[in-house]
């Protein structure tokens, strides 16, 4: 089982994702350099698009990164059903690349926000959330200036119908309230997936809360889910 962490110029959570996969989960992981033209990413089982400020987030977050050479490969990989996890800036790249619906805007209060937040698992049947239960509340950090998710009403309804809303900001007890919404996202959306469920984008940072010493291990659930899914896929193939 092999993970790839895509590195764009300006990525800065690449090392954190790498560290979690390698040293916390003890799985194989490689950096994938943005200039690589990847015709075949078959060696990977899961690609992570990390957080940070690809190309400085100049113009729009994710807008320039999506034209990086490596993104062609990522798009093909996703279309073939490969698991793609976009975290924070990685989520923004997936939106700009059209792998996920919608767009990101500036946080409602216009400020960068960094703190622990709570999200509710709305769909626990995905490869990314198998180890969670429906309605489970995760304590997980956010750190972004542009996390105000927008999508038009029609698409939103379709997404709901398809169970594409994966995480929503909530309070400690799981209530989805306006107060718990840190950035103004429509419907408190914190994470979504594509129709097939193999591409997940989320603003909160699971890689920042996968070890006890950092104050929460809820982020590990996401990675554990991926591993479990991949393992079972291997099992099934046998």
């Amino acid at each position, binding site marked *: 089982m092999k993970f790839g962490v895509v590195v764009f110029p300006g990525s800065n959570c690449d090392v954190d994702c790498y560290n979690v996969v390698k040293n916390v989960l003890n799985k194989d992981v490689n950096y994938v350099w943005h200039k690589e033209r990847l015709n075949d990413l078959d060696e990977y089982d899961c690609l992570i698009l990390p957080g940070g400020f690809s190309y400085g987030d100049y113009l729009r977050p994710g807008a320039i990164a999506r034209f990086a050479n490596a993104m062609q490969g990522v798009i093909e990989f996703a279309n073939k059903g490969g698991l793609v996890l976009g975290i924070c800036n990685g989520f923004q790249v997936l939106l700009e690349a059209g792998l996920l619906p919608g767009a990101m805007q500036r*946080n*409602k209060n216009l400020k960068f926000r960094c703190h622990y937040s709570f999200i509710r698992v709305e769909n626990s049947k995905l490869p990314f959330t198998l180890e969670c239960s429906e309605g489970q509340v995760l304590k997980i950090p956010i750190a972004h200036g542009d996390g105000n998710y927008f999508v038009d009403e029609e698409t939103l309804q379709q997404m709901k119908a398809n169970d594409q809303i994966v995480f929503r900001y909530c309070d400690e007890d799981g209530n989805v309230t306006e107060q718990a919404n840190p950035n103004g996202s429509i419907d408190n959306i914190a994470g979504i997936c594509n129709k097939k469920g193999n591409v997940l984008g989320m603003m909160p940072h699971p890689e920042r809360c996968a070890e006890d010493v950092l104050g929460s291990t809820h982020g590990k659930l996401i990675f554990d889910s991926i591993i479990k899914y991949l393992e079972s896929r291997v099992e099934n193939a046998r």
Partner: protein
Amino acid sequence: MLLVKVYVTLKKGVLDPKGTAVKSSLNSMGFEGVEDVRIGKYMEIKLNIDGREEAAEKVKEMCDKLLANPVIEDYDFEITEV
């Protein structure tokens, strides 16, 4: 040399957090009559292309691909000789 002025604006119906904040700042600074503020981008591109038509085509492509996000933004541009 051509000078291209590109205006990128938020689509109707898309909330504008920056515009809203600026409007309320203006109001609280005592400016009266400010009914609405929408904030977009203004870009100036120096283009070394002969022929406006070709340029216009190229600029349209730039906008569609990179300069504007079609999910939330519209764009418009003007080309002048300099």
